[in-house]
């Protein structure tokens, strides 16, 4: 187990700088998830930690030691790849054992270690199969096993779940989370799926275009997004954004004034999460017509047109409003998110 520190990390490919100074401290045993849209530099950061890419500027420290020039194998890390990178020509046992090739363990010790890891992943029965005979989830487990077997100080995951289907994905998510609880190793996990980030992370690092947008616990980034980008990126369906204005006594949005005090004046962007915008029987803040309904079972998402602007609101799952009907939408002023013209959140 170890801490990981990134200090002003910069990466350039030729002239193109793709990471512009990343600073991050990962505590010992922490589960940190990097999330962000495609191409934002998540993998690059991870690969620099792993030692698969040169560091253009700044420092990578593992357990307080600068490792910029260390070989991957000397960094005491393990990595799991998106396409599993398990070798199709080796049995599960050999695949898992592969991580031990350079270790100094004796043969029986290795075998024991492999069995242990397999047991931990409930893969004991499959040890002698070839990957082709495994399901996607099992393959992913083998990949994790191969990383675990060396008992590294830091686990790195690069979108390990994105090749799995929805059901498996949520299952593996849980497994990895539980594994972390059990072994307690520091984990850095890259994904572009915010649900994964939310459900697994101790802390989330949200990146965009080679910059960190926000670092925080899932609750922080969800409830106090640092800027519009984070607000939209985290949470599904995405936060509704509406143009608004700070007025005396509150903010004006969609033709209504909502009592919410702010130091800011002038143009604002108002964000409301669909979950905070309820279709209500009584009097609401906004009125609009339902253009589309997405029944999700226990709830229904209603797409409501209020004065030419479409917003998503939550409605009941059992008795959803009718398509095309006029509805009232209620929102708690506390749940408004305010952003300045520069997109940064306003307290």
């Amino acid at each position, binding site marked *: 187990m170890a801490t990981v520190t990134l200090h002003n990390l910069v990466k350039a490919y030729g002239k193109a700088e793709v990471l512009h100074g990343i600073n991050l401290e990962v505590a010992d045993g922490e589960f940190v998830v990097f999330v962000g849209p495609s191409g934002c530099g998540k993998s690059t950061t991870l690969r620099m930690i792993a*030692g*698969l*890419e*040169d560091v253009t500027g700044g420092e990578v420290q593992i357990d307080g030691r600068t490792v910029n*020039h260390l*070989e991957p194998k000397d960094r005491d890390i393990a990595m799991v790849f998106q396409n599993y990178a398990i070798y199709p020509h080796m049995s599960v046992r050999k695949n898992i054992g592969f991580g031990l090739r350079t270790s100094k363990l004796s043969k029986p010790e290795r075998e024991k270690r492999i069995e242990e890891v397999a047991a931990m992943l409930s893969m004991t029965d499959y040890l002698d199969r070839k990957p082709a005979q495994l399901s996607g989830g099992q393959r992913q487990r083998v990949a994790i096993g191969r990383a675990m077997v060396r008992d590294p100080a830091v686990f790195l995951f690069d979108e390990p779940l994105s090749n799995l289907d929805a059901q498996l994905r949520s299952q593996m998510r849980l497994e990895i989370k539980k594994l972390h609880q059990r072994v307690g190793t520091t984990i850095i996990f890259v994904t572009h799926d915010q649900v994964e980030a939310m459900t697994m992370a101790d802390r989330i690092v949200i990146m965009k275009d080679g910059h960190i947008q926000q670092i925080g616990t899932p609750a922080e980034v969800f409830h106090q997004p640092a800027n519009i980008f984070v607000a939209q990126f985290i949470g599904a369906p995405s936060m509704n954004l509406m143009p608004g204005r700070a007025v005396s006594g509150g903010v004006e949005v969609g033709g209504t004034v909502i009592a919410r005090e702010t130091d800011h004046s002038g143009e604002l962007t108002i964000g409301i999460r669909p979950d905070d915008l309820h279709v209500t029987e009584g009097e609401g803040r906004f009125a609009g017509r339902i253009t589309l309904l997405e029944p999700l079972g226990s709830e229904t998402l209603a797409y409501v047109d209020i004065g030419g602007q479409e917003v998503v609101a939550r409605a009941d799952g059992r008795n959803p409003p009718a398509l095309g009907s006029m509805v009232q939408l209620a929102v708690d002023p506390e749940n408004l998110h305010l952003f300045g013209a520069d997109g940064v959140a306003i307290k």
Partner: protein
Amino acid sequence: MSFYRNLSIRQKQVVWAWAFLALPILFYTVIRFYPTLNAVILSFQSWNLLGPREWVGAENYIKLWHDPVFWKVFRNTFVYLILGTPISLVLSFVIAYQLDKTRLLHGTLRALYFLPFLTSTVAMAWVWRWFYQPVPIGLFNNFLASLGFAQISFLNSTTNALPAILLPAIWAGLGFQIIIFMAGLRAIPTSYYEAARIDGVSGWTIMSEITLPLLKPTIVFLVVFSSIGFLRIFDQVFNMTTNNPGGPLDSTKPLVLMIYQTAFSSFDMGYAAAQTVVLFGILLVVSLLQLRILKDKP
């Protein structure tokens, strides 16, 4: 060791790359490039292999330019290319395309088509030569004669001999091309064809608008390598015309055979080297042209 440790990842890769390549580069330099260079130098010399080498300037090239045999051979070489490459490609494509749709004994048929690729050119050249003989021993002519047709002079003819020699060359390489084509065809997702079926487009449109364009990488590969093969044709010609190599009247002689004869019958090494340099130029230009034409077009 610590020097190596302090290298960046990229630099380490460079070190490894050259480590991987060290022996091969030595090999290619000594075994391939040096003799090639030697041939280039030799093309400006006169040497009968036995005596000393003498500088003669561009004389070999001038001689080549004025040598009517060379121009004939030059023409033949291109005829091999211009007939051989398209015919073998079309044939192998048609067979691969049809074979791809067949399931009954698919593997066996495929193996049969591939077999000729495994045989020795010399032995097969003889069999073909035998097929081509006039009556009473030639298979084809006996067949013609038994049907009451006049016999055809296959090899002893200035017009028929070249195609007659080309045929076994195509025959021998067909299996390889068929398999490559089949692999290319297999790599095209079925849904492309199903989508087209639903759209109701005709078979010909599917072929010209979907199959062929999507096979382009395969086609480029085959065109380039089969062209190199036909431009370097030698074994078939040499072995099918052993009595009169490249004959009759040089009508089947390709450049490589001319080089071989110049070098090992006339022992005019300098002249042979000049021919080699010309062949190298032709191959280079043709390959580059093909790559350009086939790869660039959208």
